């Protein structure tokens, strides 16, 4: 096991994160604050409480998920796409490191960055709404697992992408709609029955639901399903990555 290589990649990526800390952190915090102003204060004041929680507080878990998912995917995909784009990937491929080690370095760094952003947004939320966290350990567990699984997903996107356009395609066209339609800003019980059923096919629903449960003890789907969904998604991503490394898909000719 070449642990030194994992650490080297992790440090290298984290150095990049800290070098661009301001823009990495400021933009998600700003956009989240805007959501609070628009949804929480302006529109939220006209919406009733959702199951005993004020609307502003209700959307906090969904907002954090939105940022964490988008950040995880874009951090991890950029992390591995950039070496491919500028050609420095030759070094990763010729190093005495297994694919597992290379993946671990990039994914852990991307997950760390999105975890930091998630926690900063959580801290920001305290300024806007009255928050309570009923199950802090579960909350952290969900947050960490989400960061990891979507960083794995982002890593796959980064290997798959052959242009910067493709790199942005998935976060923009897949992740954001899934988060918006996955009950981030509403409880699916507010939807007509047909849409409730359709929403059950949205994997993000399970994440948001489980995450919200850790805050307020309420959920759209049972906690077990949420855990199963996130673990299943992580497993699927690991399987795809294992396949990529066995076949050398788009990295090793």
């Amino acid at each position: 096991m070449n642990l030194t290589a994992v650490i080297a990649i992790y440090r290298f990526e984290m150095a990049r994160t800290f070098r661009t800390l301001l823009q990495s952190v400021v933009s998600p915090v700003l956009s989240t604050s805007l959501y609070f102003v628009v949804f929480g204060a302006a529109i939220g004041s006209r919406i009733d409480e959702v199951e005993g929680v004020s609307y502003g507080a209700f959307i906090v878990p969904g907002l954090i998920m939105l940022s964490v998912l988008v950040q995880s995917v874009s951090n991890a995909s950029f992390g591995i796409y950039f070496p491919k784009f500028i050609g420095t990937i030759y070094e990763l491929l010729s190093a005495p490191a297994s694919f597992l080690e290379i993946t671990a370095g990039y994914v852990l760094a991307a997950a760390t960055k999105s975890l930091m952003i998630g926690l900063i947004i959580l801290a920001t939320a305290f300024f806007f709404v009255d928050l309570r966290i009923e199950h802090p350990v579960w909350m952290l567990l969900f947050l960490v697992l989400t960061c990891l699984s979507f960083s794995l997903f982002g890593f796959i996107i980064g290997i798959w992408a052959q242009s910067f356009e493709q790199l942005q395609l998935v976060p923009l066209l897949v992740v954001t709609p899934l988060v918006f339609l996955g009950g981030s800003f509403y409880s699916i019980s507010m939807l007509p029955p047909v849409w409730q059923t359709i929403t059950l096919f949205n994997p993000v629903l399970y994440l948001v639901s489980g995450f919200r449960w850790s805050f307020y003890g309420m959920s759209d789907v049972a906690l077990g399903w949420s855990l199963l969904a996130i673990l299943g998604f992580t497993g699927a991503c690991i399987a795809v990555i294992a396949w990529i490394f066995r076949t050398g898909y788009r990295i090793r000719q």
Partner: protein
Amino acid sequence: MAPIVSIRDLKKTYASGFTALKGVTLDIEEGEILALLGPNGAGKTTLISTVCGITTATSGTVTVGGHDIIDDYRAARSLIGLVPQEISLEPFETVTSTVNFSRGLFGHPRDAAAVEAVLRQLSLWDKRDAKTMELSGGMRRRVLIAKALSHGPRILFLDEPTAGVDVELRRDMWETVAKLKAEGVTIILTTHYIEEAEAIADRIGIISDGEILLVEEKEALIRRMGQKQLVVELAEPVEAIPESLGDYALEREGGGDRLVYTYDRQAERTGIRRLLNDLDAAGLTLADVQTRESSLEEIFVGLVKETGA
């Protein structure tokens, strides 16, 4: 002594159907400088990439220091440093951080003294805090070498190290290579500059169209393949070569000022004495006589043409 790199019947066909290597067998001895000479598209980079793990072989085996590059890739790759043809560096990283990264990737813990030694060796110490994008092309290539040397490899692959580099930097590079050889590093470099192979290599491998045409000691190659020419400068130009000299296959040069006789110096009889006598007999007066040797370039062009025909 067992070769440090042993390549057996290596074949590579890309997904596009292009066959870049058609069964390459090559042994590289420890401590030597081997130049792989060949035109663009000959398979030089594919060969290096396969040994280093960047491309996977279609068939064949490679061992590095006795370790198979697939089954025992960690041990094999630990011995290798690779300097790619393209200058690929993270533009926003400093020289030190990118060299640290390479060292870590190869499983070596941080060691400021070791990195300093490498940077000093390549005259990069003054630039250690500069971002790679601020450096000149030649400096960036040195950074690539520093990265490749950061983990103390025993074998260094240099893929076209002087492509697009000016003359001064090229000489500089050759000196660096000579220094590394003195330290016992085995060096394999690809080039299509024959001058380069001639100047620094111990052995020369000629590769064309995915096949190794020959591998030989540089001097032996020049000697074996080399033809010598005797140039006879005449006191007065001749309109045509006298019939009595028809056997020598002479060529006229400079409008008849010079006659050129090509001979094989390995031959038992070069025929020079007889030619000089016959020139005299034909009534030609010699102003000067000189010999010239064919360069590696001529040998190379001859070989590639021969096999291409």
